[in-house]
């Protein structure tokens, strides 16, 4: 039983939510680096190029770290 439990725990494929947060964190670091280097705010495409990812990946990643506006409709589950 312990082994099955361990297997289930280890078999934990990376979820999009986590990978987006990782990307967002890297994007914020790239943004700071570029701001220093360029002396101005970099564009999203410049950040994506710096990271070697597509611009849409940066957009979606940044979205994942936005505080959601509080809504009082109950979230369906």
């Amino acid at each position, binding site marked *: 039983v312990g082994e099955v439990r361990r297997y289930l725990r280890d078999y934990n494929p990376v979820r999009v939510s986590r990978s987006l947060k990782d990307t967002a964190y890297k994007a914020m670091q790239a943004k700071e680096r570029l701001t220093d280097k360029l002396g101005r*705010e970099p564009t999203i495409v410049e950040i994506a190029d710096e990271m070697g990812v597509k611009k849409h990946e940066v957009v979606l990643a940044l979205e994942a770290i*936005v505080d959601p506006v509080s809504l009082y*409709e109950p979230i369906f589950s």
Partner: protein
Amino acid sequence: MKAINEMTLSFISRSANEGFARAAVASFFVQLDPTVEEMSDIKTAISEAVTNAIVHGYRDNLGKVQIHARIYPDNRIYIRVKDQGCGIPDVEKAMEPLYTTCTTGERAGLGFAVMQSFMDKVRVRSSPGKGTTVILTKKLSSKQQNA
């Protein structure tokens, strides 16, 4: 001026779709290569408009929210958020900062003020019982200007 690109998005007024709408619109406008700040301003304004449609327009029911977005050759963006919800009896009053019909204390009455401060122009058309349309426009700084 004729738009050089446009898209339309429609979805159910579920709260889960607020983030989706914001991300989808951001994914559309990234072709203009904005900065993170510019994009964040646009996203914040859209959030407020979509949230209003969901929580006020369709207060007691679910309905459709439609977003139409356009890009003009001079770097102007156009966003129209439309609901067929309860409508606003007095638009001018609704747009006053701190005015809210929310009685639970959860909303600050600053949604329209936020849209106005983050976008160049905010237009609202509404008829009670028929729905509300909010039009947001903004001219983005072009890449040339940033260089």
